[in-house]
């Protein structure tokens, strides 16, 4: 009886089995790696917004405090975005006909909110509370990066669960890795003339940035390790998943 299969079909089968075995490992592993890369986390990706709001001008030049606009950061789970009337508080008087502010004016007078594109977003199954982080001394820059040097906002932290847990398991290591000086006390940043820390911190993805002047950058240690109120005790699931 003539052979049903050509001789190379043995090799083909072995290659296929090998590829299948390799794929069974490589494909899930590859996917798991992929979701942690900036292609998926959006880290470093600059986001377009309906209004060309430049933080460099408002923060570095005009020294407007973070909490002036993002007023929920100290009291609520959402830091929030400013209402259009907050923008108009200044911009009804200065740059009141600028074409860059056309959308803001339209929003204020029509009653329609400005549709900002969200840069920092966690899944709906994860609960994050700004107030408890800010009130316990965590500065805005620690997670949001040097916003005062961003033209358009980009996400500098991956906001993966691993990244959050790094701090919750050992905040000293996490913050020192970011270049924080643990002796600086946390306070609402009002004055830019305070000396910045010496070393240049890097974000997790490796982007180097200059430390922001002043605080909103650091955690005061407050003898937290031994106390019940330490962040390192907050690694149970329902801290964030309720």
């Amino acid at each position, binding site marked *: 009886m003539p052979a049903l299969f050509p001789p190379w079909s043995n090799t083909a089968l072995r290659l296929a089995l090998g590829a299948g075995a390799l794929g069974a490992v490589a494909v899930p592993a590859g996917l798991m790696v992929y979701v942690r890369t900036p292609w998926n986390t959006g880290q470093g990706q600059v986001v377009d917004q309906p209004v060309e709001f430049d933080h460099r001008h408002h923060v570095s030049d005009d020294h407007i405090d973070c909490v002036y606009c993002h007023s929920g950061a100290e009291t609520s789970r959402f830091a929030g975005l400013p209402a259009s*009337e907050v923008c108009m508080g200044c911009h009804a008087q200065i740059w009141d006909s600028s074409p860059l502010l056309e959308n803001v004016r339209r929003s204020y007078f029509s009653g329609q909110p400005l549709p900002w594109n*969200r840069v920092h977003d966690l899944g709906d199954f994860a609960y994050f509370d700004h107030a408890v982080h800010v009130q316990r001394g965590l500065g805005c820059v620690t997670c949001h990066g040097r916003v005062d040097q961003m033209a358009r906002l980009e996400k500098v932290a991956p906001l993966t669960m691993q990244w959050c847990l790094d701090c919750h398991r050992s905040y000293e290591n996490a913050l020192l890795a970011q270049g924080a000086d643990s002796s600086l006390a946390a306070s609402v940043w009002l004055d830019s003339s305070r000396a910045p820390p010496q070393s240049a911190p890097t974000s997790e993805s490796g982007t180097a940035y200059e430390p922001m002047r002043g605080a909103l950058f650091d955690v005061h240690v407050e003898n937290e390790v031994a106390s019940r109120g330490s962040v390192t005790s907050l690694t149970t699931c329902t801290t964030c998943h309720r």
Partner: protein
Amino acid sequence: MSEYWRSVLQACGGSAALGAGGVPASAATDTLGRRELIQLLGGSLALAGLGGCNQRPREQILPYVTSPRELTPGLPLDYATSMELDGFAVGLLVKSHEGRPTKVEGNPLHPASLGASGVYEQASVLSLYDPSRLRGPLQDRMPVSWERALAALQGPASWRPWFVLPPQSSPVTIAWLGRVRERYPGARFCFHAALSRQAHYQAAAAAFGEPLEAQPDFSASRVVLALDSDFLSQGPMSLRWAREFSERHAPRVPSAEMNRLYALESTLSPTGSVADHRLALRSTDVPRLALWLLAELARNDARARLPGLSALGELPSVEGSEHAAWVRALADDLLRHWGTGLVLAGPQQSLATHALALALNGALGSFGRTLRLTAPALLEPAGAESLGTLRAAIDQGEVDALLVLDCDPVYGSDPELGLEAAFARVPLTVQLTSHSNATSRACRWLLPLSHYLESWGDSRALDGTVSQVQPLLEPLHASRSLLEVVAACAGAPRPNGHALVQAHWRSQLGVRSVADFDAQWATRLQHGLQPGSAFPELRREPDWGRLLTLARTALTPAPRDGYELSLPVSPSVYDGRFAHNAWLLELPDPITKQMWGNALRISAEDASRLGLSTGSVVELSRVGRAVRAPVLVAPGQAPGTLALALGFGQSGSGTLGDGVGVDAGPLRAATEGAFLRVQLRATSQRARLAIRQQTQDQQGRGLALATSLAAYRQDPSFTRAARGPQASLLPVLQQASTGPLAGLQWGMTIDTTLCTGCSACVIACQAENNVPVVGPREAARGHEMHWLRIDSYAAEAQSPVGVIHQPMLCQHCEAAPCEYVCPVNATVHSPDGLNEMVYNRCIGTRFCSNNCPYKVRRFNWFDYSDDDALARLQKNPEVTVRERGVMEKCTYCVQRIRGAERQARIERREVAPGEVVTACQQACPTQAIQFGALSHGGTAMVEWRQEPRRYSVLHELGTRPRTQYLAKVTNQNPELPR
């Protein structure tokens, strides 16, 4: 990959062919071919792994344009308001997230609530967002404007409008009704309520010359007799009465004194299930028994011999009747506690019973001690016009307009009255209602009614406290409140609720300056009530003779032919007004555990004699009219009696309640009162009922323990087999729960002596935790999602019925069997003792539920969460909304625990005792559920665990639950058998 996705849909015939929860419709009907099945399997396998991998579409943030001053997004606000039911208010605190009400709690300052809330109050927040609400005025089913509608409500001075509305206690509304009467001297008012208290007031009018309110004071009473009265779970002050009664009912130490409750009723109610002694008898026999009791009291004690007793002539003696021993023991007990007794009559009982209840109270010295007389809160409490006089007036052509405001007189009314046909003969018929119902069919104008959470107004509690009603949001639809419509009828040009209420109180409060009023007003809004507005106690000399003439009908025994059918209001949908509310439709009945509908409750004796079982369909007939209903063999039902709850069997309303259950209305007769004599005939049909708890039998497992007070005193540690340490290879506490990082250890203690089965906790949990509703088909399969259920067991070795209600929820076992079987570690143990459920890890193997001995884990078999745009507004944003394929269970309200811890961290302090209150604990009227940290000594949760009657359910399994129970103790009269 997108090709596969499209082809799955194509295979199913497009997205429209996907049924509920994403299940292909063809899969549900079993017409799937083999090839189709393999295609679907392959497609879904390919999709399964990739569902979570795509980057999410970018969300937007929409901040305010002008931010409200009082509101910080993310921080909820509590507003004080009140909910009125049949004229009486219960004060509430409603939590609002970003301007939308999400959760109702009781107002601790309000006398009718004391911080608790009932089933109707908890579920009311869902009614606000009901998509089947009327959204705009309709004339002959065509949308019109409110201007047109209000213009139609005007007439000349000779106009004779008839108003049908619920009993009114609101001072503002009553003032405006007065103005309506001034404007139209021919106006007539009919106050219609399903659970009318008119008999109570009529009896009081006979005794005191005016219809006074008799307010019971349970804190002073030691013996309570409930004559067909479900005072612990139904009624305007039931939350307060339940609390006051319970405070003296549970023995905190074996030597403590307990009060005693006797209940007489035909159908087992929550009050009857708590009663120490219950006599099941026909409701029409209750007056006679009350008369026997009065006679027995008079015979044995001079203090009980009322002056007007001669009005009844020769008093009947209880000797020779089957209830003789019962009545004698009851009389002895009441006389032993002369001055601390209390007799209550249920609202549906006859005038004779109410008269006898007042007389019994007088004979027992209750007035001024346990019973206080006050002015009534209602307008015309003894009744103005009735539906009968309305019908007669329509026949005479004396009704120019019929305005039915916020009630449904046609549903459940006597078919002889023929209201629907009669209404059609009235020139102008207007109904102000939130949902279309039976009356809507007969009315030409339908005006949408604002929900109380959208309305300004006020109301009174039973004790007279003026309760503020303030809205939490602008009306969602084009609706008006009852007050605004009444004001429009009285001629107010553009009635606005806020302006009306303020204008009224500005004149009433008699303040000198605007600033003074504003300050008083602000305080009033903050507290939700007018301080000091409760009615003062009145002293009156009763005219016993005149009162007891009303009781003459009790001299003759009631006829015993046929079965006695009673129509109690449903503990879930009340009189039908909540039949659109999904939470209430799915709420298991406190006694029968039936969901989604009503069934004819029949006694076990009658059922076995007729060869019926639960689900058999029978035909009830009366005077040529017949109704078919499925039967439910109910515990504690008196032989010869039947019960069919009101509120079901509605049709054509366009709401969820259409077609659910049976309407007993066709059997009604206004002349026969609340208890009908019917004939019963078995049919060969059967119906499938959705019953959550199939049996009351504990099957010898000692799940719910109970004893009598005497036995408890003899052997306080009788629960020893169900608690205490066990030999085990496992460490005493999970490792994470010890050490400095462990934190507060949470636990819960539930006292089953206090639980009445009212199920307020079930709805509270559903509202707080976004627990979905599954619908009647899924509920019948046992897929209901309630995280907290109330299991009701017959006490072992006791008869005839001793019911123990046991709220069952996740026990948060220290050695949880569910945790070590999860393949993906979706359920873990927290350092503070909680069994945590992480929804996003769960892959739905259901092994955890398999291993749970308490069966408290609920699985999302389909996509049950309500995607309706309005219904989403009710969801609590602090709790994840679960998707299909995920297990869920009670979390000890972990969002509240973490919220308190967060607040404590911000304020650099520890969490205080009593700071964390779970939703179930907060709602419970009797405070049977106590939650807290094990280290907070002095709190009820910890103190109760020290009591000798503490036990764990299924203790022998070694799960070491953090939820502990206290066994039920009944205060039995040694002279009476159980």
